[in-house]
């Protein structure tokens, strides 16, 4: 019976995650505008955009894979959000984290991306096909420091269960991994920038050169699903990083604050940098964050 409660809670979490994700998107646009000396759109602009997209009257489809890809994208987003405990050991907000540990989450994260990439490729648009190759190449870049930090933390805490990782960081701010293993955290947080395709690493979407990247051919309801998926996915990743580095959360307020801090980190960094080319991004990830992260990694290895 408890599983049905879980499902109910999960629905709430997904809807809440969507709302929060859209809000963060709006805030991001607002911050960008203010940094550029503009007034910027309302923070609720993303809600309006979503409503408009859903209520577009026509759409085109290029094939089965094109059709299903937004669903995969949404599924990938929901999966990540639900597999990561927002508040560990809370019946409602630990979500479905009993279903799998950190490794499961890491691989499930690819699910949505792969789905979207396939849909994009099925559209037959050359830009859509080009963008995922860039994305995957860049992924090979940022995953290396990210995996470094994940493995380091797992070995350091003797667990890959996210709940246990959170539990290991309890007991004051200095127990957070951010302070316990600062170099690993730096590596992980830099990798996070790549994961969000935020500005120095935004070559995947690259509006100036390849239209809007993978979703070039997507429109209307399809696009609204992708938009939804991306928003939820974004929140899921913030929660994941919060659990990994910022000691998780014990109540909702704390969760909001911590994810918001992470969000601000991404937004501020992304607003002050130009864009790397793919191979530059890859080289960057394979040098600085990796070397920084290795300091702690070797420390853990020796210990």
């Amino acid at each position, binding site marked *: 019976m408890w599983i049905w409660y879980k499902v109910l809670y999960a629905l709430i979490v997904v809807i809440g995650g969507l709302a929060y994700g859209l809000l963060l998107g709006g805030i991001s*646009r607002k911050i960008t*505008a203010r940094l*550029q*000396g*503009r*007034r*910027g*759109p*309302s923070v609720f*602009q993303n809600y*309006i*955009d979503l*409503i*408009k997209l859903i*209520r*577009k*009257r*026509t*759409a*085109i489809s290029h094939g089965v894979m094109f059709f299903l890809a937004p669903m995969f994208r949404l599924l990938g987003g929901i999966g990540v959000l639900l597999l990561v405990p927002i508040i560990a050991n809370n019946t409602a907000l630990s979500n479905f984290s009993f279903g799998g540990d950190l490794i499961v989450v890491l691989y499930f994260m690819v699910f949505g991306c792969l789905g979207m990439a396939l849909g994009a490729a099925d559209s037959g648009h050359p830009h859509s096909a080009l963008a995922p190759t860039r994305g995957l190449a860049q992924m090979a870049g940022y995953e290396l420091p990210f995996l470094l930090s994940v493995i380091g933390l797992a070995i350091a805490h003797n667990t890959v269960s996210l709940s246990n990782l959170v539990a290991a960081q309890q007991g004051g701010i200095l127990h957070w991994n951010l302070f316990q293993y600062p170099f690993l955290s730096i590596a992980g947080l830099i990798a996070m920038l790549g994961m969000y395709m935020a500005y120095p690493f935004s070559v995947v979407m690259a*509006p100036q050169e390849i*239209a*809007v990247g993978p*979703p*070039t*051919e*997507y*429109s*209307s309801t399809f*696009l609204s699903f992708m938009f939804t998926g991306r928003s939820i996915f974004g929140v899921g990743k913030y929660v994941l990083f919060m659990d990994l580095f910022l000691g998780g959360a014990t109540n909702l307020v704390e969760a909001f604050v911590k994810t918001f801090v992470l969000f601000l980190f991404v937004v501020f960094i992304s607003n002050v940098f130009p864009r790397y080319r793919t191979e530059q991004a890859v080289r960057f990830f394979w040098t600085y964050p990796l070397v920084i992260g290795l300091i702690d990694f070797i420390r853990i290895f020796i210990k």
Partner: protein
Amino acid sequence: MKDNKYFLDDKPDKISYSEVWQKFFNWARAKSLWVVAYGTGCGSIEIPPMVTSRFDAERFGVSTVGTPRQADVLIISGYLAVKTLKRVIRVYEQMQSPKYVVGLGACTVNGGMYYDSYNTVNLVELYIPIDVYVAGCMPRPEAILAGFAQLMKKIKEGRADGWKHYLDNFEQYRKNQEKIIKNWKIPNYNW
């Protein structure tokens, strides 16, 4: 287009619908206008100032996208040659309904200073349904924003139905287009 292995050959569907929260959705549509960045003439120079810091169209929910598939608004930014018109028709037809067209500058109104040019289309609305004209040669970004305000007003009131007109009178529009475009090499309808 005779050889149809690459393209969908169907005529566009006529769309009629009624929504429960018509006003609310129209409001949402008006507040979220995505403009396809397709520069046809000298007016495309006026678009970047409009969306960047000085005039900041984004505060009205107007932002640019790189593909017609996702766009709501097509700006015909200046004179249209026959050659450009073909592309504009293709871009317009590839946009998804509801969609709106803003004609920018005197050239779109009546040919402007090129009224007697052998290659400038004088009356754009014969070929593409224009929702809002912004006069001027060229109109300043303020004027364009005013035009957008007009468009938003029309959308909110449910009067911005150029796209519906296009679909309803598709045959007529096509006839007009084919009159000036010889050797119609693009598909029957640009899906």
